[in-house]
Each structure stands twice: as C-alpha cells, then as structure tokens.
C-alpha cells in the first residue's frame, strides 16, 4: 500500500462528486481524503484525492476515473515535486496559566489563534499532514476538546500548470 495524490479536473456539473465517490466505493478503492473546490475557470472544479493502493491498482483507478464523462484531466502528483497542504482547526483546553504555552507552541508551527474564551482556544494551522500530526501530539497533554481537518489539497511545483495546453477550456452549448 502506497499513498498517492491525484489532482483531478472535472466539469463543474451537478452530481460529479457522487459519480466519483460512487465509482470508488463500487470498485472497492479506498479514499484517504478528498477535497473539492473551484479553480481559475468557473466551469471547472479541482478534486484532490489521496488514496492508498499499490501501483497496479492506481492505474485502474486513473483509468476508471477517466471513463467518467465529466472528468477532464487527471494528474498524479509526485510528493517531491508538489506542495501538499491540509487545513486544521483544533480546540484546546486552555486555562489562564497554560495559554501562553499554547500560543508559543502554535507560533512554532506557524499556526494562528482564531478564537479564545475562558476555558479554551481554537488554533488554525495549515501544513503537510505529518507536520500537523506533530502539532496535535504536542497539544494533546493540554486536552483537545475537538478538532477538524480538511482533505489534502496540492499543486505541482514550478511555473507549469495542469491546465496548460489541455482541452479543459470549454464552450457551453447551453
């Protein structure tokens, strides 16, 4: 099992996420994380899908994704040649005497305090999954009330773009 990050450009149509999720579940592929959002083209959305699978199966996943009519382009991102981020919100128990320690820790990870009250504070952090896990481990002793993490989003490094020279520019007929 190996972790693979796929960047998938899709037509921004109703049901496209259901088609992709359905295909994954029907064929027994395991999704680690999935993030969807807009791109520079309003008709195109980008999905970042992280899956755990061996190489032979990955080829099947990509081919099956490509068969979906609304899928425009798929790229496997090489972890060494791309920037990968997740967004983390974590609510930590914070008494007046531990607050400064928590703020210090957040600083180390480049995180921000986005909410504070008498008993807790909420930290926003973004980074590679491993980095965020280390931050959580260090916050754990203070008492984590709740947390939420987004799926991975990623872009290839350098000046090239996935949409360069591709056929993703669309003319709407209707």
């Amino acid at each position: 099992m190996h972790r693979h990050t796929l960047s998938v450009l899709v037509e921004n149509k109703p049901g496209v996420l259901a088609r992709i999720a359905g295909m994954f579940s029907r064929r027994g592929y395991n999704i680690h994380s999935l993030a969807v959002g807009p791109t520079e083209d309003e008709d195109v959305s980008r999905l970042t899908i992280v899956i755990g699978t061996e190489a032979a199966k990955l080829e099947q996943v990509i081919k099956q994704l490509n068969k979906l009519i609304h899928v425009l382009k798929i790229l496997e991102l090489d972890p060494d040649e791309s920037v990968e981020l997740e967004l983390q919100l974590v609510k930590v128990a914070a008494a007046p005497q531990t607050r400064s320690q928590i703020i210090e820790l957040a600083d180390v990870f480049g995180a921000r305090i986005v909410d504070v009250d008498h008993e807790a504070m909420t930290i926003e952090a973004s980074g590679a999954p491993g980095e965020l896990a280390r931050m959580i481990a260090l916050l754990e002793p203070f008492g984590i009330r709740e947390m939420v993490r987004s799926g991975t989003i990623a872009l290839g490094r350098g000046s090239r773009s996935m949409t360069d020279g591709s056929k993703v520019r669309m003319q709407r007929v209707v």
Partner: protein
Amino acid sequence: MQVTGAQAVMMSLEALGVDVVFGYPGGAILPAYDPLIDASLDHILVRHEQGAIHAAEGYAHATGRVGVCIVTSGPAATNLVTGLCDAHMDSIPILAITGQVASTAIGSDAFQEADVTGITMPVTKHNELVASVERIPVAIKEAFHIASTGRPGPVLVDIPKDFLNASFEWRWPDHIDLPGYRPTIRGHGRMVREALDFIAAAKRPIVYAGGGLIRADAAEEVREFARSLQLPVVTTLMARGVFPETDELALGMPGMHGHYAAVKGLQEADLLIALGTRFDDRVTGRLDTFAPHARIIHVDVDPAEIGKNRAVDVPIVGDVKVVLGQLLKAFADKGDEMVPDTIAWREHLAAMKREHPLRVDQPETGVIKPQTAIRRIYDHFGDEAIYVAGVGQHQMWSSQIIPWTRPRQWINSGGLGTMGFAVPAAIGAQVGVPDRRVVAIDGDGCFQMTFQEIAAAVQFEVPVVFTVINNGFLGMVRQWQHLFYDDRLSEVALPQTLPDLVKIADAYGIPGWRASSIEELDGVLGKALAITDTPQIVDIRVDPEEMVFPMVPAGASNDDLIESVAEWRERQAAAD
C-alpha cells in the same frame, strides 16, 4: 419555432434517425406521448418496463443501431435498472428516456419520484437529469453520441415533467461539446508493429475474439486477419459468429462451458491476441492459472480493460476495427515473413477437436435431449435466422451447438446473465430485422420471467418463434446442486406442465406446439417453420436431468475441464 419540451424529445429522436422506440407511458412522461402520435417513429407498447429495455437491447444487438426506450418516472424508471446493467455489462448502445417529477417537486418525495440518475449511475455509461427545457435536445444528442461511440453502452436522460410542458425556441445543436469524452480510435503505431513482431515470433498463437468485434463491426477484418496470418480463433459467448465456426481455424467457445479445444488451446498457447474482450472470469477460470504460457496482445477501445484482469505485453487502445486495419496494413507492408509457422500447432488443435467433440447420448425413441432439440431448431430455421437465448443451460448448449457463421446471428445476455432476457430481446431483434426469422431459444425458468411481452408481439405483429427448452427445472442451478451439493436439490423444480405453454399460446390467440418425444419434434418444428405471420410458442419437453459439458467448476483452473459426469465422479473418487 416555439415547441414544447415534449415535442423537442420527439424532434430530437427524429433528427437522430430513430425509427422505433420501446416504451410504456405514465404520469411524468405523459406530455411526450402526445407528440408521439404525430412523430415519424414507431412505438412498441410493452407490458413491463424491463421488457422495453430488453427489447431495445435486442434491437441494438441485431441492428448495431442505438436501441431507444422511453418510460415514466419512479417505478417505471427503476424497472429499467436490470436492463441498463445488462447493457452496461455487454456494451450495448441504449438511449433510455425517463420522465421525472416536476423540477420544483424534486427532493420532496413526490408521487412516483425516484432519484433515477442516482440509482442508475453505476449501471450506465453516463446519465443526466435535464436542468432546463433548452437542454433537452442537447442532452439527447449527447446521450446518443456517448451511447454509440467508444465502448458503447446505456445512457439515460431523465426529464422533469415541467420541462416537457414548457416551451422554447427549437434549436438542434450542430455540434456537441464533451471535453471529457474523446475515445481513442487509432492504435499506437509502434504498438501495432510490436504486435506483429510478437505474432511472427509465436509458435502457439490464438486469437481470443470478444464481443467488441461485433460492436465495432469488425467481422470482416478479424476473418482476414486470422486467415492471412493462419491464426486459430476462439470466440467468446458475446462474439459467437464473428468468426465462422465452419472455418477450420475456429476452435469454438472458451470458458466455463467452452469447447475442449478452445479451453485447452488457450492453456497451451504462447500468445493470445485478445480483441475486444475483457478476460472475464467465466472465460479465464482461476485467473492465476489462465493461459499460463501466453504473452498477451490486448486491443480494446476501453483503456480500463487493458491490464484490469491480466497483465498485458502489448497494449493497444483503439477501435478494434481500425486497429485490425492497421495490423493488416502493417502485415501487407512486411509480407509473408510475418506469418508464424503454426502448422504443427494447428494440427495439434485439430486433433483435439476430433478427439473431444461435444457428446450427446440421444436415444432413437422417446425422450428428447435438450441438445437435440436445439440442433433440430437450427436445422429447421437455418443459418439465416437470428437466435436469441435467455440465461442458463439452454444458452450454453445453443452457443456450443449452433455452427455460428454471422455476427448478430446470436443474441444473449452475457455479462449480467439476465434471466428473462430472451422474450423481449427477440421481439426487439425482430422489430429491427423484419426480413429474417427470429427464434427465441428460451428456458422454462427464463420464459416465465418475461413472457407477458408476448402480448406486445401479438399486438404489433412481431412473428417471433418462442421455443422453450422445457426441462421442468432451473437446469443450471440443478446441475450445480447435483455436482457440488451432493444432489441435494433445493428449490429448483418448475413443473414442466406449469403453466401449460400451449394453453398460454391459446390465451394469446397464437399457435402453440408441443413436442414431448423425439418422434414429435421434427413435425412440430416443421409446422412452426411454415407459419411466418404470427408469434408462436413451441414447448419442447426435454430430459430434465441432462447437464452441460464440458465444464470448468467455478473457481477451478481451466486445466481441470471435465467433459462428462462420469469424469467428474472419477475426479471426486480420486480426491476422496
């Protein structure tokens, strides 16, 4: 010109050249049934929506054109699901149009509302819930294009009732824009040359011909290819007839109930040229022991099939008709040096064919063996007829026994194995090909799943001959229980007399015939052959205990093919 959405549906179908639709009206699709009266296309009113889509499949199978069905929302649309899945598995081009509740009511659990695009997503090539009245002609044109190009398949267009009633300025799109859909047609030149080198170097090559050849209309090309390179050919259940069984290069059908030489030949081959086929488990048996010595050339229009089940040495993505043309061209350029020396191999396979024929132990009097019944049906109706089967023993025997010579001569449900397919599919085939006899060879179990469609055959004067190989059992299930469950028969008896099929014919006002002994068989078939203007039912009561051989037990290796029940018992005794 201002038209309603309902008119636009009919105008779109007309613009696409659709000549017939199979359907059933109801609430949400009602608006479309009004302009249908004036449209220049025929409508066959079925008796169940499953019948509509199987008929559309039979039509598409027989003609190569897109089969169209049209039904209402909710239960009507869900009744299509089996047929959509069947067409998806067997790559049959289908356009299914369903009515939907008004767009304003979607999500409210309205009367006859169902999430049809959600339900059918995994069993269609594509589907669309139409979002505006203007979208109707575009959606239908796109659906038709997607259904009929690349790897064909079913596409469903779901149209809310308020859009059918709404008016708009009619415009037939002059082009369609599907940026995410561009099937590869031409094979990669280097791969094509490499394939030819592999063939030239092979000692024991076999062409593994699949149903994709029929979908691509590549019968001529595959014949020329195999003959000019002297390559033996196996044809899968979905491909029967694409290469004639009468040719000495033909080895028959591979797989679980395949011919001995086809099954064993693949096991011994050193090269498979897999054309429009998908290494289905019913062909390969235990995958890790399938064709263990063979290198693989795999040509398919669907890249996802290549390497899905079996690693491939020479992958070629493309339309198999075009790729065969490229291979033939490359061969013509290189000349006869590319013809592998297969003389010894072909002699070896010919000996296998001689020494391991299909065996039938038909007594001269009394009981009819099902294999004899099928052979005599073929003897009467001949090579020119189209034969349509259901699923089970009768299907396997038909595929084995009839010496297929034409593509589209044999229609059946392969991948999904849909019992009840034959009756409606035969009706659809006959509607599409009115100038040939269409003979359904059905089982008694299958027949009872869908025979209500005979009413449609009578009403619309579709003169299919429905023969029933009536053994009073769910024969294939019985065979498995007999062999693998110590003959403990569980819920497989369907009494031969229940219902009385001749009386069923009588109830529909059509001729019904029965043969219960070998003495009666030819007389009955002769009478059915002589009548050409009406559907008929022929009840052939056959030996209930006959089993299909050869057989590769489920999950076993193709090396373990057994040819008779005696051989199975010996195998069992040796294992104990």
